[in-house]
């Protein structure tokens, strides 16, 4: 294998990994604070992608429509998430884990069918926006700028989230609630509000991924399950609830898949699962997580 091919595979793997990181980070933050594994997180991502398509196609004549969408679509997605948290999830925090799974599983069906109802079964595309269209030569082969842009976005969000969690008042409030819900409550923190906020933050991240992904691929049904399984693998590899873990997990999975497809195309899908099983057996709390 030549060096250029390796570089190209690595870059494309990283860019897909970064989009998955955004979704997995949301999943992980929600799990860390709410202790709910949101099976419907992939569906939220898909809703974001469809909202992105609607915005960009409805206001196609507006200059720089994609960049407006990049601001608005994740917020719209976060609002959908807020409604879900307030009307559904809030009722079952006290219940057994099984019911949380089943409820969020029910949401996969409801959200998926709603998307089908509203946007139909066809494929939609979103064109790559200026100025990140075109490609640049790297090591003699041309590489799409948009992929580099995605990698930049992923890193920026990662650094931004770490800063937000560790150096802002809101971030320490969230960490306080994550650490000890009752104590935080006793200190006068409005815990239900923090829960809603964290869930919306997670959905905002999924919406951001949903907006960033369409120019690189297509908007279509079925994206929900495609990404959620990848996110499960990422959060298990990195450690559920750990942000750096999600980042590292996403990079590993992205590279593993892109090189896996190259080496053994047929079994590429299984590679992630096999890695996940190995991690769960030898280091069950994940690479960056803490032992229970």
């Amino acid at each position, binding site marked *: 294998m030549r060096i250029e091919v390796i570089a190209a595979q690595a870059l494309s793997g990283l860019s897909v990994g970064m989009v998955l990181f955004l979704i997995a980070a949301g999943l992980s933050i929600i799990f860390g604070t709410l202790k709910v*594994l949101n099976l419907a997180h992939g569906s939220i991502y898909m809703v974001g992608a469809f909202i992105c398509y609607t915005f960009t196609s409805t206001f196609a004549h507006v200059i720089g429509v994609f960049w407006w969408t990049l601001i608005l679509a994740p917020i719209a997605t976060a609002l959908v998430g807020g409604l879900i948290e307030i009307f559904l999830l809030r009722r079952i925090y006290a219940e057994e884990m099984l*019911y949380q*799974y*089943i409820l969020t599983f*029910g949401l996969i069906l409801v959200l998926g*069918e709603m998307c089908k*109802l509203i946007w139909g079964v066809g494929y939609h595309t979103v064109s790559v926006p200026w100025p990140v269209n075109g490609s640049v030569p790297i090591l003699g082969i041309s590489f799409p700028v948009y992929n580099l842009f995605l990698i930049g976005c992923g890193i920026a969000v990662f650094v931004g989230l770490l800063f937000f969690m560790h150096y802002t008042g809101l971030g320490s409030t969230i960490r306080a609630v994550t650490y000890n819900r009752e104590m935080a409550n006793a200190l006068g923190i409005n815990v239900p509000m923090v829960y809603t906020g964290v869930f919306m933050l997670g959905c905002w991240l999924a919406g951001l991924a949903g907006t960033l992904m369409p120019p690189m691929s297509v908007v279509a049904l079925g994206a929900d399950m495609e990404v959620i399984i990848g996110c499960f693998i990422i959060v298990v590899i990195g450690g559920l609830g750990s942000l750096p873990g999600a980042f590292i997990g996403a990079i590993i999975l992205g590279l593993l898949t892109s090189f896996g497809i190259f080496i053994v195309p047929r*079994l590429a899908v299984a590679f992630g699962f096999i890695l996940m*099983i190995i991690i769960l057996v030898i280091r069950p709390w994940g690479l960056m997580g803490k032992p229970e």
Partner: protein
Amino acid sequence: MERMEMKGFLERVVVIKRLWLAMAVAFFVVLPFLIGKGWLSLVNEMLIMALAASGLNLMLGYTGMVSFGPAGLYAVGAYTTALFLTKTGIPFVIAIVAGPIVAGAVGAIVGWFCVRRTHVYFALLTLAFAQIIWTIIFEWYGFTGGDNGIVGMPVPDLLMSISHYYYFSLVVVVICLILLWMIGNSPFGKILQAIRENPGRTEFIGINVKRYQLIAFVLSSAFLGAAGSLFCGFSDSVFPDYAHWAKSTDMIVICLLGGMYNFAGPIIGSIVYILLSKLISSYTMYWMLFLGIIVVLLVLFMRGGIMGFISEKLSSKIQEIRLRGQYDTGS
């Protein structure tokens, strides 16, 4: 006075239960004479699904192990039977028996990994293994036929007609359900329930929780495999979809719908679920939307499922009689 009435009531409940059971058996035996072929094949599907869901429920409801991947083991059973039937010349019955055995063996390997972890991690591991099984089936064209599946089983002539196969699966399902009932009510089954209620305390009284969970996993896998084998013979074909996560969630929803903490739950659940799915999907293409709404409503308002709801009503009836008894003795 109170005790008399109470006893009489409970005896009545037992008699009614037996009567119900006898009626149900009689009903299922004469069923092929009453309904058309289409409906009979639907009932056949219900029977097989009831077995699969009851097998899953040994883990889910009895032991409290939330598995996301029962369909993987169901598919192992189905493919074992299919491969034996098409690649070797062994008799049909042996191919059917091989299904649960191989599924149990695969369940032992998968379970060995899975029971090392609990809660979220257990659920995700089961999902991962089911996906691996799906990938193997889907990608191994030379052996499993990939997404074309395997079509055309050499089913013996005797079982070719739908009503004959119906009797065959009725017998197998009833035998398996009796076995499951015996397991659930044996001392072993009680230990499983103790593990569900409190794994920590069960460990303290000297029980090897992981070992029991593994045994529950293997037994559950074998029954899931049996259901898969039966379905393979019934539908005359196997497809990778049998291992798909959507199939797993069908089974989980059936357990929830019928009631997980009741032996009859998954059976009732499968009847209602399959009827509902046929009914709603004949009116609308958005059956999954309704299913999703049903699931959400069940979780929010009826967590015990249908059987949980009924037994709640029954226990309130007992309560009522007991209260009335107290008033009687007081006056």
